[in-house]
């Protein structure tokens, strides 16, 4: 498996991280180094082995389906880069 420039660009797009065109070849090379290392996993016989979902064998706890906290829009918005009239503000999403 070898990752080319176009695949690197696609992955960057999926991850929503802007990568300049001239940085793509080096990025592709790094991916190849890491994936080359990961390739070893192909040697392992995993026939019939369940993929791990949780490391601790326990049932997830349930709780009452009730509101526990809330009613604090000021606190929720206090760290927002742009908040207006009680909402998070973002660039126009829908034309």
């Amino acid at each position, binding site marked *: 498996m070898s990752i080319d420039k176009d695949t690197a660009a696609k992955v960057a797009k999926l991850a929503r991280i802007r990568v300049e065109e001239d940085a793509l070849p080096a990025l592709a090379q790094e991916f190849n180094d890491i994936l080359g290392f990961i390739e070893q*996993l192909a040697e392992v016989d995993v026939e019939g082995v369940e993929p791990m979902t949780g490391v601790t064998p326990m049932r997830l706890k349930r709780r009452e389906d009730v509101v526990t906290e809330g009613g604090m829009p000021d606190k929720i918005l206090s760290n927002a*880069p742009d908040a207006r009239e009680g909402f998070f503000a973002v660039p126009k999403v829908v034309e």
Partner: protein
Amino acid sequence: MSELSKLTISAARDALRKGDVTSLELTESCLSDIEGAGALNAFVHHTPDLARDQAKAADERIRGGDAPDMCGIPLGIKDLFCTRGVPSQAASAILNGFRPEYESTVTQNLFDAGAVMLGKLNMDEFAMGSSNETSCYGNAVNPWRRGNDEAALTPGGSSGGSASAVAADLCLAATGTDTGGSIRQPAAFTGITGIKPTYGRCSRWGIVAFASSLDQAGPMTKDVRDAAIMLEAMCSHDPKDSTSVDIPVPDFEAMLTGDVKGKVIGIPREYHMEGMPEEIEKLWSDGTAMLRDAGAEIRDISLPHTKYALPAYYVIAPAEASSNLARYDGVRYGHRAKLEQGDGITEMYEKTRAEGFGDEVKRRVMVGTYVLSAGFYDAYYNRARKVRTLIKRDFEQVFGDGVDAILTPATPSSAFGLGEMKDADPVQMYLNDVFTVTVNLAGLPGISVPAGLDKQGLPLGLQLIGRPWEEGDLLNTAYALEQAAGFVAKPGKWW
């Protein structure tokens, strides 16, 4: 350097209770040592006013009698923990200016027990790194040096600031977190003790998430007794973390008898790595002899899937990171990129994340995105999760055969120079975690204990791995090892 900040938690606790010292005196002593230790770059946000207020409250509580063990103890807190009203940015520029409106459960537990926070500690960005070189605050520096060589060494990572601060006596102890070795490796590099408890012992609520199925908090301390005291204060069942376990937290300190007679200690043959320095091999065999002399039975064991732990980790951890770090989008907190005319929301995400994340974080997020993407999910992510099942099974088998704890080196080398790995490919850096990462994948408790110095005069650590939920027994074995090793060396002050 004053004498007070050199105290262990247990010595300070006893002195506080006797009235020989006040928490305010301890706190002032640490604050002045921190002031003079800028060269270590361990503390990155200072909270002296909060510390003094907490210390005064602790002194009052101690005077009233019946104060918990951690009452009045000045601590450093890793920047990964959200602390109310205090900058908490996981050493990332993308969380510039973030001041949480809430407190992590672990720090809340510590504060409820009366502990004092001196400030926030340096670390690798989002805990991704083994040398503290990916931090947006710059490198933390190891107080240890190679003899008279002035070259700056790494304190390890990701909890590098915590390790540096404790080793340099800037605080009595510190919190750390460990996803692949981030408590145990820096502890080993700086001659201190660090324990990662069983997955689920400490609540992850309010700790900035890296890889949720692997992350655990733990204490970084000057000795094993302190690790027992502080771990107990950090642990709790927490309804806000669905993976936190609802079982009683024992009195770990009371379990430190130093008696390991009849305990079975496993020595895994797969941990004899090719090219491992002679000194590490020797340290390991010396440690084995110490436990044998203390009455433990030594048994050679096999953990056949060890070799695949690092590659499995470098699928699972980036996959989880790519999901967890999706939240840094420039909308709710932290950095947002300046936008050009006509930029829409996608440009906002892409520019914000390109500016806010450092190179290693970007790399891991993208690797994670790749291994989770359509067409590769089965080949990489599902396969890695199956290998993880096998790694855990390896441990279950040896524990099932009667092994009580497993002894290994903590790291494949002593601390290396800052910048020395600059030209290495990322995988070379990942190899630092070769002995520690299996423990996270299997969810087990692991502790690093300082056990000797190499010929450059740098500390080396041994790791003990225990059965799930048996941190008390593990700490006791570590205590026996600590007593036998008699490690008392301290870095000479140059900062």
